[in-house]
């Protein structure tokens, strides 16, 4: 038996979310968000729990986790940096910003996908257009949004996280 436990506040939040839809299955994405926000990632047990909650098969949830880029099947760093890679940000120097962050955290700037530092504190990844192309380059740190990010500004943001 799995030891996966959902605290009662989270479960009541989840029940509220399910009530927003005439069909339970529609709540899948919102439940995945809620679970990932709470636990930091989506485990196999979490997938099974959500499926049971929505009266679905685990595959119905698993196929969402593998389709939607925001869901993770492993923990990410405490601070996750998402740097926009797409054209307007590229013209605004996102490549330099990404390399700078990778350098700072001793990660490989040429590797694809999410990378996390060994101590589990920081993750960095390139993402596609974040809908703020006029203030390129932009990035997110967890839910925070940062515009016109120079290397110096990135350093400040990282220092604030580490404090």
């Amino acid at each position, binding site marked *: 038996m799995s030891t996966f436990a959902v605290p009662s506040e989270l479960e009541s939040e989840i029940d509220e979310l399910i009530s927003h839809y005439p069909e339970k299955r529609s709540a899948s*994405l919102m439940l995945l968000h809620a679970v990932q926000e709470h636990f930091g990632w989506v485990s196999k047990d979490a997938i099974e729990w959500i499926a049971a909650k929505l009266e679905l098969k685990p595959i119905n949830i698993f196929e969402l986790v593998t389709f939607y*880029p925001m869901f993770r099947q492993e923990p990410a760093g405490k601070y996750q940096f998402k740097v926009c890679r797409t054209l*307007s940000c590229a013209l605004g120097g996102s490549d330099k910003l990404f390399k700078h962050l990778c350098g700072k955290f001793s990660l490989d700037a040429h590797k694809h996908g999410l990378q996390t530092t060994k101590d589990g504190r920081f993750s960095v990844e390139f993402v596609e257009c974040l809908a703020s192309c006029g203030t390129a380059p932009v990035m997110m740190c967890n839910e925070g949004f940062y515009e016109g990010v120079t290397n110096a500004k990135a350093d400040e943001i990282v220092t604030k996280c580490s404090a």
Partner: protein
Amino acid sequence: MPQEYRLILKHADQPGYTPDIDCYLKHGGYGALKKVLALKPRDLGEGKTQSPQEFIREEVKLSGLRGRGGAGFSAGLKWSFVDRKGGKPIYLICNADESEPGTFKDRQIIHKDPHQLVEGMILSCWANDVKLAYIYIRGEMPEGAKLLNKALKEARERKFLGKDILGSGYDLEIHVHRGAGAYICGEETGLIESLEGKRAYPRIKPPYFPAVLGLYMCPTIVNNVETLCHVTHIVNMGGAEYAKLGTPNNTGTRIVSLSGDVKKPGYFEVEVGKATIGELINDPAFGGGLRDGRKLQAIIPGGSSSKVLKAGEKFKLKKKNKDGEMAIVETDLLDLPYDFDSLMGAGTMSGSGAIIVIDDSRDIVDCLANLAEFYAHESCGQCTPCREGSLWMNKALHRMTHGEGRKADADYLLHIAQNIQGRTICAFGEACAWPVLSFVKKFKPEFEARGAADEAKRKGAGTSQKFAAHPDQQT
């Protein structure tokens, strides 16, 4: 000289304007809702009456409002396709997925004036007998989702939303639904699948037109954030008065997102067609021109999926000449009025209203390679031409930008792109093929030279061709 005309963003950047309901109410908010709820059925004579809902739908038609999400389709016409006789519930979904590269206008509305969207949605739902609606917001806008949830809660507390709205007997509920990082969720049928809790695989049309077989196979209206906001202003002004804004068949205002190589990137709300592309890029009121010493190389006029325009291009447009007669007028790229029809006339589209400027310091092959990577990442994978083609185009462009190109890659790219468009379930096929087709066709010498230089380098270094020609190319 053209100026901004702020209708949607009238208050958004004013000092002290906040996203809460009291601020919105102080500025006349929810006045349009009170106005429609007080409407009485109209006597059309000969025993015919028109319901207040029908009246507002007619006003939206009269306004000429065209969708601001990408396709520029008439909002009034879209609403008229809704199956109202079948007896199934009608749903409305606000498309707040804003993920077309270059576009950042819906973000401004959601963050700075969320109640304007909520009111526009309530009006649109009321006019279409909708009882349940959703805002599908992209996953990477957590802050926006919170602001919208707060706005909806405030609206519920004031009886603008929920059961028996302002005592009218009309019930409506709106919920926020978050996406999770997939661009294809912006495509309306992909969005519907995603809202049903599935992978965002677009549905084939026919038969799955949302107006007939949408969410839960019920009639569904999908409109963009900005489109829905305009409905509030149409109700306030009246459709005919609204239609005086902008230009014929391109009415109202629209928010233009300007990014890339200009001095002052940003968003500008203008009357549709009253400013040219050149003015939007160069005027001090807008983009302020290119950086000093730089010249224009290319413009992506309507989000990354629109066909690129090359500096110096001329187009033959049907326009009124000096004597007021319709004539074919040769128009320079910079003199193109920024509206739906002129850009279509120039062989491209105004799409999501996003202009990306590329100056002469940029390598055009790099620019296309960047976009190809986006499309390769975002194809949902249902249709073979799109799934494979977007990857092949990305691969070819990747090698061209990593010293492994060939002169023949230019034609190879065109060949793949031509085999995607028109052969797929959804318009993503065109969205990924058009940039490649237009960039490579218009900048062919640049693409061929880049490949040829790599070939020469490999020959000089005595290495063999690293990539064998693709079977498709051995003609």
